[in-house]
């Protein structure tokens, strides 16, 4: 699904910053992966590249059989819209749109008729258990509810992968569990999910952890035992 070979990224500035120093990565279809690393390790940059929000300098990035490199802004927008569902730490819902409109927005940019996209939005809100909250505005929702709306928005375009950037970063432990439970359910349904986090409690809910340090992959942990960590006992994190 995702294949990175020798990806380099340098931020040009007064002092050029070599952030990614040759990333080789393969994530298969249906995998639930966490990318972990301290701040400054390059994990956010990696996520931006995976999400086609940023370009890279060297190497190759294949997403579902498509080479993603030096795209024009319009085709980048197209791929983002069709292939990737984003979940952000700060939810990034549009404050003056209600839950349903927020969920339906990606379909607006696909040119789906209003009635159709609102129907679909309701369907996805139901999947995340927020059907009754469809006409509430973000400031009337709790953090967990907002993140679930954001997940519904990420799902509505039936993307190939879900990219989650610190999805529980702004949530308390109880709602964090809810959100991670939801992601696990999606994973069980066959969705490919990549979570970027610095919380091991979150990372250990996934089946594969990629540790990043100084712009390079340090090691990859396969199938960590969730129960064995002090952070994840009984599914309770932090």
């Amino acid at each position: 699904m995702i294949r990175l070979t020798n990806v380099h990224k340098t931020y040009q500035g007064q002092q050029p910053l070599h952030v990614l120093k040759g990333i080789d990565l393969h994530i298969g279809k249906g995998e639930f992966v966490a990318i972990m690393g301290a701040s400054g390790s390059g994990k956010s940059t990696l996520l931006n590249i995976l999400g086609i929000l940023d370009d890279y300098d060297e190497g190759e990035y294949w997403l579902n059989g498509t080479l993603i490199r030096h795209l024009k802004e319009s085709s980048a927008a197209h791929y983002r819209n069709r292939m990737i569902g984003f979940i952000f730490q700060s939810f990034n819902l549009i404050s003056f749109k209600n839950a349903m409109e927020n969920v339906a927005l990606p379909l607006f940019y696909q040119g789906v008729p209003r009635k159709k996209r609102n129907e679909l939005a309701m369907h996805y809100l139901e999947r995340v258990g927020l059907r009754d909250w469809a006409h509430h505005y973000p400031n009337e929702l709790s953090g967990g509810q907002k993140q679930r709306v954001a997940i519904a928005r990420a799902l509505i375009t039936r993307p190939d992968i879900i990219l989650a950037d610190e999805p529980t970063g702004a949530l308390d432990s109880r709602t964090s569990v809810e959100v991670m439970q939801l992601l696990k359910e999606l994973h069980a349904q066959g969705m490919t999910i990549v979570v970027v986090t610095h919380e091991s409690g979150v990372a250990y809910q996934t089946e594969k952890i990629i540790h990043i340090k100084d712009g390079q992959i340090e090691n990859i942990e396969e199938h960590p035992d969730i129960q064995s960590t002090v952070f994840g006992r009984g599914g309770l994190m932090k």
Partner: protein
Amino acid sequence: MRLVRFDIDQWGEIADSLLRNKMRTFLTAFGIFWGIFMLLLLMGGGRGMEEMLASNFAGFATNSGFIISSNTEKPYHGFRKGRRWNIVLDDVEHIRHAVPEAEVVTPAESFWGRDVQRGTGHCEGSIVGVYPEYSIVDSPEITDGRDINAVDVAQQRKVCVIGKRLREELFKPDEQACGQTVRVDGIHYTVVGVGGKSEGGMSLNGNATTTVRVPYTTMQRAYNIGNHVDLLCLTARKGYSMSHVQEKAAAVIKRAHHIHPDDSQAVNMINAEAMFSMLEELFGGISILVWMIGVGTLLGGIIGVSNIMVVTVKERTTEIGIRRAIGATSADILLMVMSESVVLTLMAGMSGISLAVLILHAVESGLPQGTDATFQISFAMATGAAATLSLLGILAGLAPAYRALHIKPVDAMREE
């Protein structure tokens, strides 16, 4: 490639965005509103005033000039100064030969304060003796019958053209004036025409509404004036100025009447052309001023809109970033910013146009009866104004939209 989308939600978004900051939107819109309102009001008003003034000059040749005799100022050829002299009919012929730049050279003789009578009715007026060419300089604007013609002059016919008011005073409304006679100083003249020139208009030899025009030759005989001429009327040919024509004509007259060439008082010249061109310049100046004020105000308004849009884009940086992240193309963002700018500009502008039209309409219906002037702007002008507004709205949206396009999703997320 997907097409740019625009549906009802987009309208909702524009409305939302504009209403979120009501005061700011209102103040910005007011700039546009006031600019277009002032521009149209001043344009309509300026043109209306010009037309009102122009209607006063209707039938009057704007390239005309006049010469009257006056006492001499300098002794010459043995004549003392302060001598009284008169323009005579021969001068007319002399000028016609010597000044080819003059198109019309025609004399007029008048007596003011005469009692014009018909049966028992009477009305004070003046009697003017003219040649047919006189109507080129000061047209009676015949509404009924005909003007004095060459045959009338040649045969010294006792016919006349009467003014509007004389017709109203001396005849019943349903009565046919032409063919009837009126009496001035005991002489009966057959009415052959009625003039339509109204009160307040510019005319020679007294109020046009109470003037009795008769052939010059008839006047010569009736009042025994010989070759005496009160007023010499001139018009300049195309391409020549009246002052040039008058200079030459004055020289001819001075030579014929033994007047010192440098005498500045004896030959009294009135230059209507200079007067008219002054008025024209005045209105030209007013119209430039109107444009400057109107366009300046409008420009101020547009800059205001552009400014506010920049602020809006800045405020919505995160939102725009999110939109980009979930698949909005540059064109989508461009459309979002531009449409808001155009909608704001158009709505404000349309209310400005409407109010200007309303006020101009009120002014027009408040004018005294019979005033022939249009204050209202034309439909084409209003449409043009609306089209210009759309264009200005687009221009105002350009800078902020350009800014919005450079928001990267990554940057937007970083602002959190």
